[in-house]
């Protein structure tokens, strides 16, 4: 069980949330002008890192707001959650990023 800190409601159980994949993926400004390969990359290609991952969550059973989380995919530790529009926390300054525990 994870406790996830909703930026609005505070720490809540994981089961109140839904996960919605990698965050900060910009939609091409002019979809008609990008190549199939670029459009395909936008739609399907994800970083899938082993380590810190910025991702979208929604507090489905709570305030129903979307937010971002910085999660370490190695140990599921969530290092930060932040609201849309807020500057993403600097992963280099994050204690998790400096953790040499496992290889990335």
């Amino acid at each position, binding site marked *: 069980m994870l406790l996830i800190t909703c930026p609005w*409601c505070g720490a809540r159980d994981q089961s109140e949330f839904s996960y919605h994949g990698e965050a900060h993926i910009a939609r091409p400004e002019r979809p008609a002008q990008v190549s199939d390969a670029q459009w395909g990359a936008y739609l399907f290609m994800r970083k899938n890192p082993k380590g810190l991952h910025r991702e979208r969550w929604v507090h489905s059973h709570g*305030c129903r707001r979307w937010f971002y989380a910085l999660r370490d995919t190695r140990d599921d530790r969530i290092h930060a959650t932040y609201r849309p529009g807020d500057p993403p926390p600097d992963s280099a300054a994050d204690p998790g990023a400096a953790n040499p525990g496992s290889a990335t």
Partner: protein
Amino acid sequence: MADSGRDQPVPDPAPTSPAGHRAPVDGDTCLRELPWCGKINLRGDPGDSRFVSAAADALGAALPLEVNTAAPGGRATVFHLGPDEWLAHCELDGAAALLQQLRRRLAPLHHAATEVTDYYTVLELHGTDAAAALARGCPLDLHERVFKAGQCAQSRFGNAGILLYKPGPSPLFQVQVRWSFAEYLWDYLAGVLDSL
């Protein structure tokens, strides 16, 4: 063309939920469905002081700006649902008038006021085991040290989304649930109470 029968005002049937045919559970901990109340969902910008004061004037209760809190007032009890969303419970008969008043007061401001009276019903769980029963299906920490009188929270019970409210220090909880989940929640809670 006009059908004369149609001109007769038809009284609204008394609202009931799918849990309405269940007999209240009595014992150390009681479960009952509260009489239907009016419900109005309100959205707006809490950073706009004009919105906050106009909404408070219309609702007769301060708009709770702190998360997970509720504000009981003369005309309505107002629950904080999200950073820009509130829910007001009022008298069933007064919902239409309250909605009108809200819309009139908030007309010049960015807002949305929606009547959701028929969308939800409210169950009441009261007694020594109320928190223990809720803990069987709800992940919130309901210890009185954490979930205090006057607090509310949206969460889930089993698979049903709920709005939980603790009006006072006694072990009494109001559980608002979507109308269509009322029977599910009722049966789940009644089963838990039976097994405690």
